[in-house]
């Protein structure tokens, strides 16, 4: 009899979701499905609005990474205007995105994932949370908040408190950086550096000790990786070209332009999830699975280009790189956590360079033009990965069609694969009909999803909370066993 184990919902991520583990007739784990169960309506909502409003509208999709949509929308708008934005505007947008990456990664590492690392997978879930972390290491908890605050404050210094008011617009940005803001950033940088130094040191100690097994079984499998790189092949987050690299280090495709995304990416749909399943078109579905996000960005690039970040990248590769790739490619999804810390280092170094760049303070920050194209694709690197915005407008500039390819969707196949690998490692196989699944194992399955730090706000709305539920279902839907936890 085919049975299904359902974990519903996944905690510590946005929106509503559940995980189901599918068993075959012999009770062996056969498949894992990460379900997103609410309709994604933003694309439809955008239709009929002027493209100039898209930055403000799409920034409302997500409360955690509004800047990512803001920038992707503005860049798509640049193309509809067919303008090149002023150099200062490009640098200001870069500063905004670096701050966004910093604050989002800080939240993921210090407040969502650290409780698992520091308190242990077997820890009572009532204590394995941010309060448990505060009890264990209040200074770390406070430093994490300060680091996130640093990134958030830069966003506010640039865009004002109401960041959703679309500071980045087609053609550039609305305002420049003030001299006072520049001073504030430079004054706070040393503290941010100290915090990430401490976090890296702590994380490496854990990698050498209690996290060794997780590194091996939390989604360690070959896949493609996709991300932006500069035209010189370096780490990139806003401009540049798309590169796809295989797990053995081979560059599968390079110099790709986002305009042509439909030629190399396709999106599958499954009846059990509203989240789409993008894949690399030449390899087909699901063989064309690829990963995006911090780990993918570090895998596709040749280097970062700043000394501290390059040293940390070299250490990440030396620790976790696969033999097949000559140590260049890291295939364990668990390494997303380490990659986030390396990216924060890269961001801090890049922020310092930008803030000391005289061109950043130039007052000319916007190129103005009318509508010159009716279709455009924009891309940016969001904290969770590559984000595509594709708009088609009419002669009046009103949106006729929108397609958003979000990072969490692009990691969809890899998240399922990660969950299946973890389940096979930690849940007895075959699963006996009356077998109980201990809570720490459930948490590991969820933690596999959390490696990707998914954000489902693009597709869901958390109108209320549901308890975590585990169900063992027969093929006819009969509940064979059930387990709930808060």
């Amino acid at each position: 009899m085919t049975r299904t184990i359902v974990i519903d919902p996944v905690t510590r991520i946005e929106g509503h979701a559940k995980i189901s583990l599918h068993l075959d007739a012999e009770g062996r784990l056969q498949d894992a499905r990460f379900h997103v169960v609410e309709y994604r309506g933003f694309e439809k909502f955008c239709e009929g609005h002027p493209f100039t409003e898209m930055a403000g509208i799409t920034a409302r999709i997500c409360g955690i990474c509004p800047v990512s949509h803001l920038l992707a929308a503005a860049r798509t708008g640049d193309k509809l205007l067919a303008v090149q934005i002023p150099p200062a505007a490009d640098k200001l947008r870069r500063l905004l995105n670096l701050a966004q990456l910093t604050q989002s990664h800080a939240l993921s590492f210090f407040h969502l994932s650290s409780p698992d690392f520091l308190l242990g997978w077997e820890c009572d879930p009532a204590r394995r949370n941010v309060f448990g972390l505060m009890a264990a290491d209040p200074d770390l908890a406070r430093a994490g908040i300060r680091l996130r605050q640093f990134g958030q404050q830069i966003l506010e210094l640039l865009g004002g408190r109401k960041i959703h008011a679309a500071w980045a617009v087609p053609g550039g940005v609305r305002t420049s950086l003030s001299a006072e803001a520049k001073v504030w950033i430079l004054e706070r940088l040393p503290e941010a550096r100290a915090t990430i130094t401490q976090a890296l040191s702590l994380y490496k100690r854990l990698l050498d000790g209690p996290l060794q097994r997780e590194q091996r079984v939390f989604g360690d499998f070959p896949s493609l990786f996709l991300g932006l790189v500069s035209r010189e092949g370096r780490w990139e987050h806003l401009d540049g070209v798309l590169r796809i690299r295989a797990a053995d280090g081979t560059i599968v495709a390079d110099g790709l332009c986002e305009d042509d995304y439909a030629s190399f990416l396709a999106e599958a749909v499954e009846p059990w999830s509203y989240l789409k399943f993008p894949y690399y078109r030449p390899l087909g579905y699901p063989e064309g699975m690829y990963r995006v996000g911090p780990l993918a960005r570090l895998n596709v690039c040749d280097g970062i280009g700043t000394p501290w970040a390059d040293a940390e990248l070299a250490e990440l590769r030396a620790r976790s790189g696969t033999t097949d790739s000559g140590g260049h490619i890291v295939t364990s999804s668990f390494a997303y956590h380490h990659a986030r810390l390396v990216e924060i280092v890269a961001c801090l170094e890049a922020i310092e360079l930008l803030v000391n760049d005289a061109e950043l303070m130039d007052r000319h920050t916007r190129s103005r033009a009318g509508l010159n194209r009716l279709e455009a694709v924009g891309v940016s690197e969001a904290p969770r990965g590559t984000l595509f915005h594709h708009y088609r407008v009419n002669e009046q500039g009103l949106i006729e069609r929108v397609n958003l390819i979000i990072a969490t969707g692009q990691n969809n196949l890899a998240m399922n694969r990660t969950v299946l690998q973890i389940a096979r490692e930690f849940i007895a196989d075959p699963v006996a009909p009356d077998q109980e699944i201990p809570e720490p194992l459930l948490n590991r399955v969820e933690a596999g999803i959390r490696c990707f730090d998914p954000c489902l706000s693009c597709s869901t709305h958390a109108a209320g909370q549901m308890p975590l539920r585990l169900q063992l279902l027969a093929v006819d839907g009969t509940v064979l066993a059930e387990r709930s936890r808060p």
Partner: protein
Amino acid sequence: MSPLLVIGIGNPLRGDDGVGPRLAAEAEALAPRPRRGREPDLAVRAVQQLTPELAPEVAEARAVLFIDAWLAPPTIHVPPVGPRLVSLGLGDPVPLGDGSPAMLSDLSHHLDPVTLLRLADLLYSGRPRAHELLVPAEDFPHRRRFSRGLRQRLPQARDLLSQWIADLSPGSTPCTS
């Protein structure tokens, strides 16, 4: 004196969910004007969700009001109610580890108000008086407009907001709800 802090929670593009940011924006106009050269006595935040870096700001406030849309649980029969101003304590509504929904959300990307208050207390030793203005909501589609029911409740919600500000402003009787 540390300021009052009003935090409106919600997404203005999701129907009734936007009531928190709407009322937070109106709060500035309801506050007494500061004397010349003085800082405003009221700080306002409109956020899509609560996040940890708000904790220091909450800790520094003398009183905090969270404004949020409230959707009655579908499994519970709740007779029609209007907007409510409820006090928030640090321990009583959601003791640690009791399995309450708020416990869940303290590890999500978003926090609930009580968890944020606890962060403010434990990390920054700030214990502001705290209230929550809950506005019954019914519809969360992708649109800017509120449902008819919520529009009918808005005046009462505004009155409660005004009352909260007035009660906690200098020279007034403290809020007792």
